[in-house]
């Protein structure tokens, strides 16, 4: 239950920040709504709904909501955090060195560390998939792929 309450509080705070930012944009009036009109209405709606869920949700969803220990059970945090870190690295590298090199690295990591394939098999798959992607989407279908200093 605690996770849901935290989520509600986060949404209330987010709504409040948006609302305050929108006030600066100007609410205007009902007959002449300003740029802040819609964000103010939506954020107030978000705050109201989240507050309602925070107060009454715990009671009404008591049976259906997953318990905290269920939500966060059996998570391999190491794998999850490493994957997110790898994806972040990939996104940083893409514009710098282009599509091919970071993609081979990312796939190698995913095949080896996440899917537990042997190093040579992971490397082979990484190269094959990257090449197929590059040839299929980049060259044949003309999809735009990031080009770094290597031009690939």
């Amino acid at each position: 239950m605690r996770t849901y309450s935290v989520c509600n509080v986060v949404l209330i705070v987010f709504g409040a920040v948006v609302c305050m930012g929108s006030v600066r944009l100007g609410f205007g009036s009902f007959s002449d709504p300003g740029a802040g009109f819609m964000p103010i209405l939506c954020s107030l709606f978000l705050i109201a709904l989240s507050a309602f869920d925070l107060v009454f949700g715990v009671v009404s969803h008591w049976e259906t909501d997953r318990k905290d220990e269920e939500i966060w059970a059996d998570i391999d945090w190491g794998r999850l955090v490493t994957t997110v870190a790898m994806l972040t690295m990939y996104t940083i590298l893409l514009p710098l060195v282009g599509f091919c090199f970071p993609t081979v690295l990312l796939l190698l990591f995913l095949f080896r560390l996440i899917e537990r394939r042997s190093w040579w098999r992971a490397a082979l798959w990484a190269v094959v998939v990257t090449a197929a992607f590059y040839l299929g989407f980049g060259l044949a279908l003309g999809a735009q792929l990031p080009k770094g200093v290597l031009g690939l």
Partner: protein
Amino acid sequence: MELFNQLYMGFSVALQPNNLIYCFLGTLIGTLVGVLPGLGPVAAMSLLLPATFHTTPEGSIIMLAGIYYGAMYGGSTTSILMNIPGEAASIVTCLDGHEMAKQGRAGAALGIAAFGSFIAGTIGIIGMQLLSVPLVSFALKFGPAEYCSLMVLGMVVLTFLASASMVRALMMASLGLVLGCVGQDTVSGLMRFTYGVPELFDGIGLVPVVMGLFGISEVLLNVERVAKQEFLEGKIKGLLPTMKDWAKSIWAIIRGTVLGFFLGILPGGGGTIAAFASYAIEKRISPYPEKFGKGAIEGVAGPESANNAAAQGAFIPLLSLGIPSNVVMAMLLGALIIHGVTPGPLLLEQHPQLFWGVVVSMYVGNIMLLILNLPLIALWVKVLKVPYSILFPLILLLCLVGAYSINNSMADVWFTLGFGILGYLMKKLSLEAAPMVLAFVLGPMLETALRQSLIKSNGSFSIFFTRPISAAFIGIAILLFFVPMLPKLRKKRPGAVIGGDDEI
């Protein structure tokens, strides 16, 4: 007579060699992404959208539409053979389709799914053809108040149908509306929440949001748990359903078609909801409901017909009103605008060749899909044997590169990643992404319509209640909003059983 002229115009466009190739490519890619679990039409469309920039608007839309309804066909194959939905709208097909396969009747299940889809698709196109023209003349009466009320109704319908908790679904819809406000204000030109980032001036892109929320988040979930891959070996026989199968299925197909078509037209409806609703109805009216979930052929025929009819119905609000009823239609809206075509009531008048060409291409596409999905089923069975360990890194790649390729922008890749993490957390908390995405898509249009209405009425909200069409939309929305509060009806609400999510 006019109908024949329109059909003639449509055939003359759809049967051009180029357009035939686009139609074939679309249906082929659609079936492929439909078959592959975790991949849906949006990923394929966003990757291929830039490739269609150089083609004619007709060719582009024919191909992109083919991907959409092709995915509806392909999704059933995976559900039946692997017990994993190949496409979100096929979730419910797993229940009886896979049971039939386990009993050695995979062929009959695949056959009835394909024929049901074909019949529903074809009737859906006829419905589209017949309804579009009257709807366009009806839509010409729409002012901003009607548009605004219709969009509000669409969002309420989605939150009503698609979630176990309507308050939380509305919370997600509000979040989507807030995110839709990012970017330049269309009326005053002021920048909102852009923080000087040029990529945000046009707002957050739809593709990064969808790829992140539905694609990346799924991969992150997969990282923490190992999915079991179950596959039925053996040759698939008897793809032609027997007379007994037909007798059992035909009414389910017809009911599914009608239901799916009308749920497809409704903004906020769509294939997934249509399939669930059809299953619920078939089970309720069946003389042997206990057989559902244990291999009842109606449980395959109804939902598969419903999702295909919904896929055709969904084109109507887009082409006649300019309102996308789901994410795929929002992508098509983007594609039309890129080609300089504004969808809406005037589309039929200004670009009849595009409208009728696309409609008629769907007839051709449906025949192509029947051939692709029945005689060539062995090919898709081979595709299904690609292990997950290859597939999920591929999905990740498709999402990130797909997001990049739309605008050639790294910011979009960052957004995809960010929304991927958000989507992961939402999935953990069972908060649905579909209402958020629909609200995000409709938000800017809703804002414009709302502000125009208020300016017109001099600030009075009565404009939404005094105009009859608008009042009807708002009335239904209010009704749906309060229905879950009635204790007797709370448990009967379809949302209580529908937990369907969308996918990329």
